[in-house]
């Protein structure tokens, strides 16, 4: 008889101990307070926006859940999308940008006051917009353009103020080079300001289908020229910083940047393939969708090659796994988007729930995970308070398993929907066949929602610690 292996007898902890966040960064209290408040607001909007998303998901299984006008599906759906877009993701990205831009320009933020003003404007805009939408006041049913212009103007004003603040910071930088992060981050602001302005101006989109031409451009760039360049720019800072090594290739980042600007701008109309808008716009969109292979491959390869050889560091960190997942989703969801634009595949997937899976993989798997990676990478160093590693782990796994469950359920169900339509079945069959997939979607959504409660708890645990001076005084006393 042999003794049991000594390896087996060693008590194994449930979780692996992760590395500490490291030294607290020497930064002004103004900066910490401002950034922390942005993050706290974004955590609230994430909670609120996904509470509504969760509720909407349940309505697919129980359509008679309530009979209040302001809780009905048609009114709440835009509340969900707009709150997570403008309330959660945008606020969180701006928070991280308010750190990254000054840091890589080696100077303080130009004005903290302007930072507070724009936070206030964003919150008022998202709050007022949600109330309007629940009251049935929307801009016309165009996705992500549902806030009426007086409400969206507040959000746009916040963008203008913030980009002014960041531009001044870069212009007064204390080194010659403009770091690649600041290309992406400031570009995202400039592009989105143009985008929102053109999406709301009257004149060329008054009658008939003209607003649909603008809508294709707007709804696509809303994701691709705001969220994408923002999180990519932030990742160009956080990934090398957290790995403590330079980015693999600076030039790949530059190539991805310019190709993103040129190709991405042209592809909005792929949301309207086979629609009655001019055929040539649709074809241009499909061609440039293929062109997106260039920036996506360049960006993903750059990040993965930076990670190469540092897998152990990633495993030992509690923020880097979020970034790894985000990068993998970035590649997956972008290639998937190109496939969806092909007319042959568009036939099967367009109008089905497959689209909903795609949008969650991009806004959640890609954008939100990169945001969380940045938050967990930065905030503890800024505030001096670490979140409990166990609850960061719970956040990570619930969010990841949740979004995978959610997306696979809707990708499978959506494909079956499309095939059902192509098979000339009664329309109602495509509704009844979805029932089990909608239940799986609700299950995935529930995991995601719970992870956001854990995230909010972690944000609370990361609240600024007392400044070191006070600590020394306490010890001295």
């Amino acid at each position, binding site marked *: 008889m042999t003794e049991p292996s000594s390896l087996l007898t060693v008590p194994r902890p449930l979780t692996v101990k992760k590395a500490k966040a490291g030294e607290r960064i020497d930064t002004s209290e103004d900066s910490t307070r401002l950034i922390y408040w942005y993050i706290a607001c974004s955590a609230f909007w994430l909670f609120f926006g996904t509470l509504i998303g969760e509720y909407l998901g349940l*309505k697919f299984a129980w*359509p*008679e859940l309530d009979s209040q*006008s302001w809780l*009905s*599906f*048609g*009114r709440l759906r835009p509340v969900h999308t707009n709150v997570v877009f403008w309330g959660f993701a945008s606020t969180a990205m701006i928070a991280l940008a308010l750190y990254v831009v000054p840091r890589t320009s080696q100077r303080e933020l130009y004005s903290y006051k302007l930072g507070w003003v724009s936070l206030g404007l964003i919150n008022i805009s998202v709050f007022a917009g949600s109330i309007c939408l629940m009251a049935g006041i*929307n*801009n*016309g*049913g*165009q996705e992500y353009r549902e806030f009426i*212009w007086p409400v969206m103007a507040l959000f746009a004003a916040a963008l203008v103020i913030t980009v002014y603040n960041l*531009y001044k910071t*870069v*212009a007064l*930088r204390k080194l010659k*080079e*403009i770091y690649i992060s600041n*290309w992406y981050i*400031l*570009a995202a602001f*400039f*592009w989105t300001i*143009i985008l929102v302005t053109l999406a709301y101006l*009257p004149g*060329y*989109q*008054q*009658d*008939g*289908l*003209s*607003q*649909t*031409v*603008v809508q*294709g*451009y707007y709804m696509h760039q809303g994701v691709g020229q705001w969220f994408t360049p923002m999180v990519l720019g932030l990742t160009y800072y956080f990934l090398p910083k957290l790995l403590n090594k330079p980015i693999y290739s600076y030039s790949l980042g*530059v190539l991805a940047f310019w190709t993103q600007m*040129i190709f991405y*701008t042209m592809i*909005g*109309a792929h*949301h309207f393939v*086979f*629609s*009655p*808008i001019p055929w040539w*716009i649709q074809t*241009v969109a499909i061609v440039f969708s293929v062109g997106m292979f260039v920036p996506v491959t360049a960006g993903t390869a750059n990040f993965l090659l930076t990670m190469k050889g540092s897998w152990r560091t990633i495993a030992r960190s509690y923020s880097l796994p979020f970034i790894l997942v985000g990068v993998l989703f970035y590649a997956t969801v972008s290639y998937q988007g190109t496939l969806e634009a092909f007319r042959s595949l568009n*036939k099967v997937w367009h*109008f089905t729930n497959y*689209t*909903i899976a795609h949008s969650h993989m991009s806004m959640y798997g890609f954008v939100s995970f990169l945001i969380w990676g940045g938050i967990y990478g930065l905030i503890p160093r800024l505030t001096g308070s670490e979140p409990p590693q166990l609850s960061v782990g719970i956040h990570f796994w619930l969010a990841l398993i949740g979004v995978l469950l959610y997306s696979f359920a809707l990708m499978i169900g959506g494909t079956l*929907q499309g095939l059902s*339509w192509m098979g*000339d079945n009664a329309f109602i069959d495509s*509704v009844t066949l979805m029932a089990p997939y909608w239940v799986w979607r609700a299950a995935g959504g529930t995991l995601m929602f719970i992870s956001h409660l854990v995230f909010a708890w972690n944000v609370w645990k990361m609240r600024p610690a007392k400044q070191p001076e006070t600590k020394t005084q306490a010890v001295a006393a």
Partner: protein
Amino acid sequence: MKLDFHKNHKLLYGTIFWGFLFLSLIIAVLPALWVQDATKPLEWDEPMTELERRGLEVYISEGCVYCHTQQVRPIKMDEVWGRPSIPADYAYIDRPGIWRQTPAVLGSSRTGPDLSNVGTRQPSAIWQYMHLYNPRSVVEESIMPSFPWLFKVVENPAPGTKVIPIPEDYAPESGKVIPTERAKALVAYLLSLKQAPLAPPSQN
């Protein structure tokens, strides 16, 4: 001039700003303008009435567009919904006022059926009212929301009031269901959704 994007912030951000604005003009603004100018309604297609226009506003306000499309694509699987949609089908839709933009009716999701021809498919106003009051009263498997706030329940409707017959299982405990003005407008709009023929109807 040297193209030192990584050192000259004015050059970098200027290119970013003006470059994107230029691309936006050629891919969005100018095509939109062109579509707007080129789109004329079919001469024999009746313009929308005031009531139907108000119905379209209810349609947008309640978010019907999130589950219903109004576009028939030129592919075989869409033949069941009608002929392929053309820009002229949407020519009567315009901006409702200063606060809101021209509504979008094309839609992006078919959780429910396409409505391009719902006025032909379900021409009964009573069916439309019952369906809006509770979709399951006419289609058992439907997951569409009920819209009870578009109706009133009254004990003794005045003579001549339109009373909606609701099956017992779905009817309120007591009283009669009558449509509000918003419901009437919405149903008028839905019944007006009929694709106009591509060629003028013959005169006789």
